[in-house]
């Protein structure tokens, strides 16, 4: 490939940042200074480059972590090193929220302005920030700090939340939650940062220490904090058992368990494993840890509180399906999870525990909800824009690098060791016939003790709210968002619905990512719906017309309804909203478009918002 570059050169720092990941360039064609005699005869940049494209996202991260933003010279250098056309790399870099292609200060405070944080005082926080010394956005700032708004940061149990990242030789990050301007400023000046960074994950699990927990029992305990602790607790016994009994046995157990995916699509896990086991190699396994559905933070808690179990589970999955490499794709807003998982993988590798399986690599997302969609995730790892692919073909046929691929959610995998140790049949006996096993629920919003809760499938929404201490705020529940932004808004009359796939489907809702977010009577539901519509508008990848334009038209119409400019009483606007919803559901490429109107539709059926008449 004959690449063309603008004359912009990298600074020494930018070059270092890239070389720290890729090593020194070995030829003038790949960005080296010296012209070697052999360079005059052959260029292998394109050919060799083709194999390196998957390093594009890690290299962009390296530049951004070091310099805070990505300059023309830096992008050019990264493209030379990897043999990627600059226009394409620019297209990739501009796809992600966390990268900036124009100068910005080294310290960014990302303040969540999403639904749970709105319910818990984001507006006040943003007013306070407006009168603080930290400017919102901008290329520069007197103290090197700016703040920006962000969709859900996955810290909803501690809302309102802020994530602070500092670029430099030693990039750092910290969480401030619940956030106040004073707390944020303290963190920015790196006072008390150490304490913040190790934020007690135990606090996110109010049930911790109560016994009887299957998925959460190690969170906050020594068995979740170190490899020794994990091994003492029986860690890696499941992988041993798997190796002793063989692949076929493992897949049979998973089939017998009746486990279905916890990532939202509820696909039977055993069927997926069977398909990958039967496919021809090379094959890959991917743990989907992109968790970005507003109101969802269960995968974060598992990664921070029980990382070794997840490594073991992924090793079992790779072993059982015969994969030759496994990836953990973690959202960019989870630096703490990334560190814990990286540490756990390293520990396990050092002890040779992964020998029966395959190497595990971590990939960081960079601020794009859509990269949680499995095929978008593949494109993201491969170094392309995170645009979903049309299905079929399905991942088990053609996934990562166009090879058969096993994708499972973090929580799905967390169930695996237990299934092998107890047997699939025992697992299937938990929960209901259709929805088996234990389940994690994310409680936030107006709730007394927010956090991740474990309960068997079949627990009702009311029971979950009671487990978490009941409704906070005014104490009176007005509505409950279940399943996430792509879920449904339930009426208080529906909260005795059991949380199972079948019961939720029956009332036109979904288990989704198991969000349970009560809103008290003071909440403006219309404003929440506008925020949800804005979320989808912002997160649409932009590839297909029904979703690219539909999410915008939906958001615009909702804004007009919310401002009182138009009313739902009029046939015309009801029809328009209905048609926008239908084309997104029917004709979009992926699940984002398919469900972008779900919450709005469900709410308008149940609540008389904007002059509409609920049923």
């Amino acid at each position, binding site marked *: *490939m004959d*690449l*063309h570059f*603008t004359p912009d050169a990298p600074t020494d720092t930018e070059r270092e940042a890239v070389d720290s990941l890729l090593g020194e360039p070995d030829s003038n064609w790949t960005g080296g200074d010296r012209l070697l005699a052999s360079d005059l005869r052959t260029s292998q940049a394109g050919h060799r480059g083709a194999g390196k494209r998957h390093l594009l996202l890690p290299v962009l991260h390296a530049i951004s972590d070091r310099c805070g933003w990505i300059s*023309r010279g830096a*992008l050019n250098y990264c493209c030379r090193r990897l043999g990627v*056309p*600059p*226009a*394409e*790399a*620019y*297209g990739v870099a*501009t*796809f992600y929220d966390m990268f900036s*292609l124009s100068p910005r200060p080294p310290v960014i405070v990302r303040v969540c302005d999403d639904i749970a944080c709105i319910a818990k005082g984001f507006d006040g926080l943003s007013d306070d920030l407006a009168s603080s010394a930290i400017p919102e956005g901008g290329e520069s700032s007197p103290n090197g700090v700016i703040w920006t708004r962000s969709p859900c940061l996955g810290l909803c149990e501690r809302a309102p939340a802020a994530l602070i990242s500092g670029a430099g030789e030693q990039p750092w990050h910290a969480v401030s939650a619940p956030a106040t301007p004073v707390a944020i400023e303290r963190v920015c000046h790196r006072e008390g940062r150490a304490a913040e960074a190790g934020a007690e994950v135990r606090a996110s699990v109010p049930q911790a220490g109560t016994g009887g927990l299957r998925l959460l029992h190690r969170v906050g305990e020594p068995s979740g904090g170190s490899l020794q602790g994990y091994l003492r607790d029986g860690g890696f016994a499941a992988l041993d058992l798997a190796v002793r009994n063989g692949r076929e046995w493992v897949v049979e157990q998973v089939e017998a368990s009746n486990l279905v995916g916890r990532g939202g699509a509820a696909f039977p896990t055993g069927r997926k494993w069977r398909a990958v086991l039967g496919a021809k190699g090379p094959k890959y396994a991917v743990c989907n840890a992109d968790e970005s559905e507003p109101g969802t933070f269960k995968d974060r808690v598992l990664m921070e509180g029980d990382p070794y179990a997840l490594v073991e589970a992924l090793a079992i999955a790779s072993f059982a399906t015969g994969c030759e490499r496994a990836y953990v794709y973690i959202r960019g807003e989870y630096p703490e999870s990334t560190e814990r998982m990286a540490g756990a993988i390293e520990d396990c590798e050092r002890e040779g525990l992964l020998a029966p399986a395959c190497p595990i690599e971590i990939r960081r997302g960079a601020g*794009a909800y859509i990269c949680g969609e499995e095929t978008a995730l593949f494109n993201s790892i491969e170094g392309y*824009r995170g645009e979903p692919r*049309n299905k079929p073909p399905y991942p088990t046929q053609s996934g990562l690098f166009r090879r058969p691929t096993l994708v499972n959610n973090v929580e799905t995998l967390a169930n695996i060791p237990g299934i092998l140790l107890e047997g699939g049949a025992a697992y299937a006996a938990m929960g209901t016939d259709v929805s088996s096993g234990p389940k994690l629920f994310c409680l936030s919003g107006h709730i007394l003790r927010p956090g991740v809760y474990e309960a068997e499938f079949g627990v009702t929404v009311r029971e979950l709210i009671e487990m978490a201490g009941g409704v906070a705020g005014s104490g009176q529940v007005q509505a409950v968002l279940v399943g996430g932004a792509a879920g449904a808004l339930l009426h208080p009359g529906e909260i005795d619905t059991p949380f199972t796939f079948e019961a939720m489907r029956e009332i036109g809702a979904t288990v989704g990512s198991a969000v349970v977010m009560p809103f008290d009577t003071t909440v403006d539901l219309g404003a929440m719906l506008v925020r949800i519509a804005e979320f989808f*508008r*912002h*997160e*649409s*990848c*932009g*590839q*297909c*017309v*029904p979703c*690219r*334009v*539909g*999410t*915008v*038209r939906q958001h*615009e119409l909702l*804004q*007009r309804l919310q401002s009182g*400019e*138009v009313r739902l009483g009029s046939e*015309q606007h009801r029809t*328009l909203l209905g*048609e*926008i919803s*239908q*084309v997104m*559901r*029917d*004709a*979009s*490429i992926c699940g984002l478009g*398919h469900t972008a109107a779900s919450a709005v539709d469900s709410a308008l059926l149940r609540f008389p918002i904007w002059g509409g008449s609920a049923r």
Partner: protein
Amino acid sequence: MNHRDADLAPDLTVPVPRGPVPAAPPGTERPRVEIEVDGKTISVEEGATLLDACRRLGIDTPTVCYLETLTPVNACRACVVELEGSRVLVPACSRKAEQGMSIRTDSERVRLSRRMVLEFLASGSDLSISPELSDYMERYGAEPSRYGEGGSEPATVEQPAKVDNELYVRDYAKCVLCYKCVEACGTDAQNTFAIAVAGRGFDAHISTEFDVDLPESACVYCGNCIAVCPTGALIFKSEHDLRQAGQWDEDRQREADTICPYCGVGCTLTVRSQDNQIVRVTSPLDQEVTAGNLCIKGRFGWGFVGAPADGGTEDGNGSCGAED
């Protein structure tokens, strides 16, 4: 070559072909599949798409992002059809026909989605010089004006045209993000990769790296992107200028095929002219050699046509070959 041979001096005689050239082995007949389209049964060869089947039945299907010569990106969703057993509609342009499939191309659901897709496109982009899309909008009853009622204006991609070179203009206010230009500039034809999709969601747009002007970019001005653009967002400068001046007049135009005078490849050129001035050059999509693609010379290198042959009179060499 074994070791002994390598020690011998090379034999420089040119091998003379002996005997007849072998005939190509006979092609094997591809297996066929049968599907049902709007109640009619049709058999197509394996690998054919639902769109192929519709076309063979003479069913006119709107497409925006599909082109015979490009890899389907199935992004516009104008071609969706209802597939029995599928929860969502499927894109006809890329979904392969499978034995026993049954599809509807004109059901209520299909019509609604097609209408909305066209409406969405027209509400955000300037489709004033895309007559084909206007026809489909009429057919499906698209009403893009309903997004702008009341005080608030809907978001659009409106922006000034990028005029940064003498050969072609990028008027992205007309862009519908069909990805065709990116494909043509990339692995589907040109392999230059000068442009790509940047940004996300409604902000997604076609761009060079850091949005630099074309002369700073990798562009080699083959114009293959112009040839595939369905909306006139990419347009010859000559055509753009005439349109700006209000002088573009298709009634005064003629089109003729000729062979490119430059090199031995001999690409077919379709030359369009208005009042004896060449205004646009394309190549037929179904032309075996070009598949619609050309290089900078064939596409734009006709400045000599109509120029005085020897610095003499204006009309010395006045008409381009295409005119006759």
